[in-house]
Structures are given as structure tokens and as C-alpha cells.
């Protein structure tokens, strides 16, 4: 009577439980992987469906904002560095001229890079993989 209540006495109940739990975990794991695989095949379709109508305006707006801010940031940073160099070295106005031109170049580079037309940082002539 007392022995039947103690799991240690028999030593059978607990491994049995353990094995069943493992089976269930394996099964869940397998089903989860199958679900992920089937989701992955369906996901691109779903995203394209959404792009079609409502998101088009928002995405175009976001793209415009992105490109213009990249360009402006390049010029602003070039002007800022030039002004700082002039102030430190007293080479006014040459620092501003040179760095403004460099900033213009960097702005163009930023725009092309964020549009995916030029290689990423440190990647050389390898263009960014298209999404």
C-alpha cells in the first residue's frame, strides 16, 4: 500500500512519463518546423498582395523621404566637417569648399547605396543582393 504511492519503489512510472514527454516534444518540434517551412513558402505571396493596393502610397512616400534625407545628410555633414576644419585650422574658406564637395559626393553615394545600385560599405564591386 505504502509502496504503490512511492515512485522510487517501482522506478517505472517516472521514466515512462519522461519518454512520453520527449515524444510529445519531438512531435511538437517536427510540426513546428513543418509549419515554419510552409509559412516561408507562403510569406512572399502574402507580402506582395499587401503591397498591391494600400501600402503603395505609404511605401513611395517612405522611399522619397529616405532618399532625400540621405542626400541632405551627406551635404550637411560635409558642410559641418568643413566648417569645423576651417575653425580649427583657420583655412577659411578652403575647408568648407573641399568638404562641401566631398559631402555632395557622399550624398550621391548614400542615395545610390540606399537605392541598392552601388555596393555596400567595404564590399567592393559586389552589388547588394536584391530583395
Amino acid at each position, binding site marked *: 500500500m505504502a509502496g504503490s504511492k512511492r515512485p522510487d519503489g517501482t522506478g517505472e512510472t517516472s521514466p515512462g512519463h519522461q519518454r512520453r514527454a520527449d515524444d510529445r516534444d519531438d512531435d511538437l518540434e517536427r510540426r513546428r518546423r513543418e509549419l515554419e517551412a510552409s509559412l516561408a513558402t507562403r510569406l512572399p505571396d502574402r507580402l506582395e498582395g499587401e503591397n498591391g493596393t494600400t501600402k503603395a502610397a505609404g511605401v513611395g512616400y517612405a522611399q522619397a523621404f529616405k532618399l532625400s534625407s540621405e542626400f541632405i*545628410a551627406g551635404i550637411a555633414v560635409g558642410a559641418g566637417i568643413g566648417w569645423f576644419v576651417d575653425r580649427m585650422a583657420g583655412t577659411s574658406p578652403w575647408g568648407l569648399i573641399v568638404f562641401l564637395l566631398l559631402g555632395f559626393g557622399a550624398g550621391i553615394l548614400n542615395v545610390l547605396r540606399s537605392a541598392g545600385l552601388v555596393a555596400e560599405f567595404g564590399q567592393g564591386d559586389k552589388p547588394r543582393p536584391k530583395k
Partner: protein
Amino acid sequence: MAADKVDPIHQFHINPIVPIHVGGYDLSFTNSSLFMVVAVVVASGFLFFATSGRALVPTRMQSMAEMTYDFVASMLRDAAGNQGMKFFPFVFSLFMFVLTANLLGLFPYFFTVTSHIIITFSLALLVIGIVIVYGFAKHGFRFLKLFVPSGVPLVLMPLVVAIEIVSFVSRPVSLSVRLFANMLAGHITLKVFSGFVVSLGAMGVAGMAGAVLPLAMAVALSALELLVAALQAYVFAVLTCMYLNDALHPSH
């Protein structure tokens, strides 16, 4: 009567709530600080309560929290690989903070934290600071290869390197300007169109009929603002992931 009181910029004023002055610096607790605290509390409270159940079959709230987690995790894994996952807590906190602050700003009479460039610029500086520190700590001076693209003729090298450096420095600027400008412009537009409704409505019956147009516009703009708020938080997080990728793998 309310027509001359419409001031689209007024909503961005910073008002001290608890004035604190330490050694000549103004460290007051302002309405901006208040809404930052609110954003942090809302974001962490949402995640805490949503995940406290830990059900195998998630409730709606838990499902939302898990989807956000999965979304950011897959974004980071796509951009920076599995090594990038050590930055997951950082990117996730950043995303949740920006998203919550943007969405809170959509409520009437709420202050939009991310419509001030100093906030977004601090966040961007934090990101770029982590990129630089981690890049140098992990790769040492090889991190500088980031600025030297391969396959460039030696004659052009100084020019290209200078442009690359300016381009790198402009990253936090463009990151912060984009978020700040989007939120600022959106809120001003919304306010201006709502102001039209009020001033036209004060002009009698014909004005009331005319006020329908800006009202419809304000409704449409609110929807657009909701999209922009989510989109900009997403863009901020995606670019953070891409910059972190540069710190992890400076030369591919």
C-alpha cells in the same frame, strides 16, 4: 474664436514639469521626459503582462508580443546573421521604444517624443557609437577596411576613402533626420488640416459644408500617420541592424 489660436507648432513646445537646475544646467523633468517614461512603461508593461501567461496556445496579447519578438528577431538575423543576435536586446528595446513613442504621439494632446531631433539624434549616436566601439573591439584596425572598397585604382583611393568616411559620418544624421522629419511633418500637417475644419466651421453654414473636405483629409492623414509611425520604427530598426552588420563583418 478658436481660429486665431491654431498654432501647428505649439504642440512641440517643451514645458518643464519639475524644474531641476544643477550647476547652471537645466535638467528639468519636462513633458518630453514624462512621455519618454510613459513610452518605456507602456512598452515594458505590455510585454510583461502579455507574456506573463506563457500559454502554449497564446492569447491575443501574448500572440502580439510573440509576433513583435519574432519580427525583430528575423529582421536582425536577415541583416546581420546569427552572430548579430547578441545585439537582439538592444535592437528590440530600440524598436519598441520608437514604436511606442510614435504611436503614443498619435493620441490628441499627447507629446510626440520622436518629433524632436535631439531625441532621435541621441538614439542614432547610441547606435553608431556601439557600431564603432564594437567594430574596433572585435576587429581592431581591420575595422577601417570598411572605408576602403576593394577594386579601386590607387590614384582614386584618397578621394574614395574621404567620400566613404563622410558617407559613414552622415549615417547617424540621416537616420535621425528621417525619423524626426517624418513625425514633425506628419503632426504639423494633421494639425493644419484640423485647424481648417475649425476655422471653416466658424464661418456659418457654407463653411460647415466646406469643412467636410479637410475633415475627410484629416481622417485619411490619421491613417497615414499610423502607417508612418510603424514604418519609421521599422526603418530605424532595420538600419540599426544593417549598421551592426558592418561592425560584425567589416570586410565581406
